[in-house]
């Protein structure tokens, strides 16, 4: 780690974290299942014109359609390729269906296969066995998915998937300390597994909080600072995805994206206006103006539990 994002405090700007930790040719995972998808990090990767990335994600979603449309990636590893509840990722499809403007290499699994690739990567396991892919054509188009037999009497056939070890995993969280102890609530997806599987980890959060906040509820910590390289405080970084308890999913944007993504020129214009044309996400948030009014979350508190004073 370089000076700016090193030391006991790992706080960094998005520009510095992405600039120093995401390198051309890297395998990058920006995870988050519907919830906590860090669009701001994807935009910064586009803004810095990273190249030849291999992008991994269970559900590429609009964020990877934007990144792949912007030309930062040469390959995509995924399990479900769509605009959830809306339609297609047209920029991705143009590259797969028509090599337009250039081909995109793909490597696909099922959801469970992708999750277990992260688990294997996080656990330093050479393979992970699952009961899936039986009588499916998926293994025939992905030789990484191999059949194996149980060494026990039952001799049950399973399939195995190889570990996935991203060079960089980027996760978004509601809060983290400067040391990287990260707390998440709401949908958990596979962020923990993707973070432990990675060589480098960037945690982006709504709020950098005092260590005391985290120490009050240690069971809420999903990713410990020990595996985190940089902590970026970037409120609203998930738009149009959401952060449970902070803001809502902007479903209208997902609908709008269908139209934008269909038209390469509209996509170009969108990238110019909302990514290249902006300093960073803070400007993006300001530019959204009162669109935020409909997206703020009301209060619904968790209640407290007692950890006990044992002095």
């Amino acid at each position, binding site marked *: 780690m370089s000076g700016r994002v090193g030391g006991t405090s790992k706080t960094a700007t998005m520009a510095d974290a992405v600039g120093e930790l995401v390198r051309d040719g890297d395998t990058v995972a920006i995870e988050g*299942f*519907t*919830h906590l998808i860090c669009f701001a990090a994807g935009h910064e990767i586009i803004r810095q014109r990273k190249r030849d990335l291999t992008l991994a994600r*269970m*559900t590429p979603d609009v964020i990877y359609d934007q990144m792949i449309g912007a030309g930062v990636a040469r390959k995509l590893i*995924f*399990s*479900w*390729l*769509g605009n*959830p*509840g809306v339609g297609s990722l047209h920029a*991705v*499809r143009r590259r*797969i*269906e028509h090599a337009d403007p250039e081909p995109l290499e793909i490597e*696909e*699994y*099922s*959801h*469970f296969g992708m*999750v*277990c690739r992260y*688990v294997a990567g996080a656990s330093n396991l050479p393979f992970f066995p*699952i*009961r*899936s*892919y*039986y*009588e*499916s*054509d*998926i293994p025939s*188009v992905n030789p990484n998915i191999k059949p194996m037999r149980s060494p026990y009497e039952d001799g*049950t056939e399973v399939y195995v998937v190889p570990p996935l070890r991203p060079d960089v995993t980027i996760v978004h969280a509601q809060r983290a300390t400067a040391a990287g102890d990260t707390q998440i*609530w*709401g*949908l*958990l*997806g*596979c962020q*923990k*597994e993707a973070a432990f599987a990675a060589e480098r980890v960037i945690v982006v959060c709504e709020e950098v909080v005092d260590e005391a906040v985290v120490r009050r509820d240690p069971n809420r910590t999903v990713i410990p600072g020990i595996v985190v390289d940089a902590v970026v405080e970037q409120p609203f970084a998930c738009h149009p995805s*959401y952060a*449970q308890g902070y803001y*809502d*999913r902007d*479903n209208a944007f*997902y609908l709008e994206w269908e139209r934008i993504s269909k038209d390469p020129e509209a996509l170009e214009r969108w990238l110019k206006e909302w990514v290249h044309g902006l300093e960073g996400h803070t400007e993006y948030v300001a530019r959204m103006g009162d669109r935020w009014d409909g997206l703020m*979350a009301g209060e*619904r508190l968790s209640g407290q539990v007692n950890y006990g004073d044992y002095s």
Partner: protein
Amino acid sequence: MSQDGYTKNEMMIAASARTLAGERVCFVGVGLPNIVCNLAQRTVSPELQLVYEAGVFGARPQRLPLSIGDPTLVSGSTAVTSMFELFAFYLQAGLIDAAFLGGAQIDRFGNLNTTVIGDYAAPKVRLPGSGGACEIAIHARRILVIMRQATRSFVGDLDFQTSPGHSGDPAHDRARGWFGSGPTSVVTDLATFGFDEETGEMTLLTVHPGVTIDDVRANMGWDPRLSGSLGETPPPTEDELRLIRTQLDPQGMYTS
């Protein structure tokens, strides 16, 4: 809205909900299946527990969820689980009794294609892919299919088999040792189908009101096997329509 006072989707939803009678734990996504499951909970299957595929249990959504990971599913639910645990501890462990699947193509044995139209290496249309469908088809004890019917989607041969259904060889199916038994019902905008106990072949059970067997035949790529007791699908009841329109989809987002 048909002249009978309900829409094709409302017919599909009502017919699908009835197939959930007696089920205990249902794996559910958003859109039609979400409305179907919530309708079943309020009619034929009050004990039905919904497990949303984003990892939410006992959801009490305060609004119609617009994505499988809608935050309204989480606030006030009884449990949230990681994707690994959802697939390993619940689905692969056989805790899921019923699940809904659909696809771009289905064949007469209920095999599904959600991956590609045309050649995989040079696709005509690149579809989303498996998501969880492949393992859901293998592990959920009953698979319920909801699809609009057309000759291009009900095909003799799939371009790609994403999720296995029945093999066509019942002995083979019994020997699989999966929790899943292949699809047990298919509900379309024209009719409802089951699958023959012996051959595992899709069988026309009922045609929706105002639909003829020829309409059904005209909208699928093979000549369907007909049930001995072929009849008409009971139309949506007033109660079903009231629940759909007043509680489950008041804006008619999925039902108009």
